[in-house]
């Protein structure tokens, strides 16, 4: 594993307001890293700092071993960026838009042509390649943005809110595409406020809050650490004293009564079979047993509990 992005003590102030307030980040080659947090928590600012499009007030950044402020061209040559509100030249076709940025990226036209055709095919836009972008839907523009990253053959792709504004199916398609590319060795940095959606794709995430990263780690570890158990099991049962039945069962970390005959069991492993077995064994009636994996939303709420937060979902 090699580190491709490293930020230390990153601070960006606008006047007295610190949009990014002391962030430390490392991203390893080939991983999908999520910058997650509510609106205004500093995700976009962090991305602009990584790209060298904004100067930090303090702190150091190294991208692919280079300082984006001192070697901006070398860094930008190897990073692809999908801005949160992506725009294209509406009077040009999809193909022409990509050809323009390819030329800016220094690709000679013969090589660019091949790459553009390939990239448009990958994002399934080859049929509309010669249509003006003015006629494109939001999802098509988003895919075209990803095609631009492909044309560049970027080693690191930084996507700001790639799924915002997309319907669930388009979002899922985009995530599948990202997963596929990640499998080919592209490093991804994704930002989003849709924590639940991102947890399915991100290897590691950093949870942002007011310009700081409160938590960093793998999703499973975070849910385990913050929520006590990764697994949440709900049972509906009669004639059984669950407290007694579950005493001493391994992996179970908590038991909470819910409404009616329902209980919630927190565990750090899938203990459904064991629980069902014991309830029945104790002569209880088991009406239902369901398991739900904890979401990052819950992690977020729990971790920043007590503070005044506004998680957008």
């Amino acid at each position, binding site marked *: 594993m090699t580190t491709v992005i490293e930020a230390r003590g990153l601070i960006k102030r606008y006047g007295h307001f610190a949009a990014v307030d002391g962030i430390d980040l490392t991203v390893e080659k080939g991983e999908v890293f999520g910058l997650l947090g509510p609106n205004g928590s500093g995700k976009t600012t962090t991305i602009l700092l990584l790209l060298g*499009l904004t*100067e930090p007030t303090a702190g150091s950044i190294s991208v692919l071993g280079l300082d984006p402020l001192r070697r901006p061209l070398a860094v930008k040559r190897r990073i692809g960026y999908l801005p949160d509100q992506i725009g294209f030249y509406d009077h040009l076709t999809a193909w022409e838009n990509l050809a323009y940025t390819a030329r800016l990226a220094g690709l000679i036209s013969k090589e660019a042509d091949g790459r553009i055709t390939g990239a448009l095919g990958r994002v399934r836009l080859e049929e509309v390649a010669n249509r003006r972008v003015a006629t494109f839907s939001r999802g098509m523009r988003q895919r075209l943005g990803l095609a631009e990253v492909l044309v560049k053959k970027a080693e690191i792709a930084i996507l700001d809110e790639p799924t915002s504004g997309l319907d669930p199916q388009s979002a899922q398609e985009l995530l599948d595409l990202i997963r596929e590319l990640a499998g080919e060795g592209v490093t991804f940095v994704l930002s989003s406020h849709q924590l639940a959606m991102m947890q399915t794709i991100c290897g590691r995430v950093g949870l942002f809050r007011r310009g700081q990263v409160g938590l960093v780690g793998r999703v499973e570890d975070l849910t385990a650490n913050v929520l006590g158990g990764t697994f949440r099991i709900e049972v509906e049962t009669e004639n059984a004293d669950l407290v007694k039945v579950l005493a001493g069962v391994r992996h179970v970390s908590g038991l909470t009564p819910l409404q009616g005959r329902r209980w919630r069991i927190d565990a750090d492993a899938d203990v459904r079979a064991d629980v069902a077995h014991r309830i029945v064994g104790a002569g209880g009636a088991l009406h239902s047993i369901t398991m739900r994996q904890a979401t990052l939303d819950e992690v977020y709420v729990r971790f920043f509990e007590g503070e005044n937060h506004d998680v957008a979902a």
Partner: protein
Amino acid sequence: MTSRREGSPFAGLSTIALKEAADHMNSIRIHLVMVLVLLTAIGSVYAAIGQIKATVGEDQFLFLRLFTTAQQPLPSFVFFLGFLVPLVAIALGFDAINGEYNRRTLSRVLSQPIYRDALLTGKFLGGLLVIAICLLALWLLVTGLGMLLLGLPPSGEEIARGLAFLFASFVYAGVWLAVALAFSTIVKSPATSALCALTAWLLFTVFWPMLAPLIAGAVAPIDPLDPMTAVHQIHVQQAIARISPNTLYGETTLALLNPATRSLGLLFADQLSGALMGAPLPFSLSVVLIWPQLAGMIAALLVLFTIAYVSFQRQEIRA
């Protein structure tokens, strides 16, 4: 920005300039303005030819009269150009930078391996390229019309003066392109920046000639007992008038296209002693005469471009 940077600040410059030029050439906005310029140019030159044929039989510089002769009610070609060239330049540049913000293409373009310098300079050069092509086409058209209708070719000196006039018009257009570019970086909305640039245009083409004497009268009042105060006032008035690029352009074209022009300021009788009234100045001396005006326009262009550059470098490109 950091003091030491790697790579060329001009990476991507030609790509951007060519794309801008191509966009302009395809845009309806520019087509409209060009049709307007073309129609007025043809109209005024056609009228001038009628006038020249009727009145001037023997004139050493018949061809230059094409540009300067006014036939009521149409003003001369030069007047039209001085009036309309700024409009073309503003149409080319008023949304150069803020248009990219509004289309949200700026951060995508700047995440490519280029510097901001290249984007701004490329847009400026793209605009200049279009202006150069249009002016050259217009100049060839007028010269061609003249040859066709007057039935004789221009002399070598007329061509030289005509080319110098073409260059001066190009610089003048560049000044207005820089005005439009500066407004497009400073003002966030394209509609507002267009209005700002048009206001500047109106101020300098229409109101400045009226304002200059008023301001001069207030700054340097005439003392009826001292004739030198009148001279002083005229000097002040001229200095104020020359703040306007239109004045500089007007003086430049006057000296270039009217070879009899010996001075662009006040002349006293003793300065004229020995001079043949009405005798044309050689081309080289006319160039010397307009040198300060031309240099002034180029300086204005550079200052305006620097303003745009500095304001663009400091901008947050979140969009």
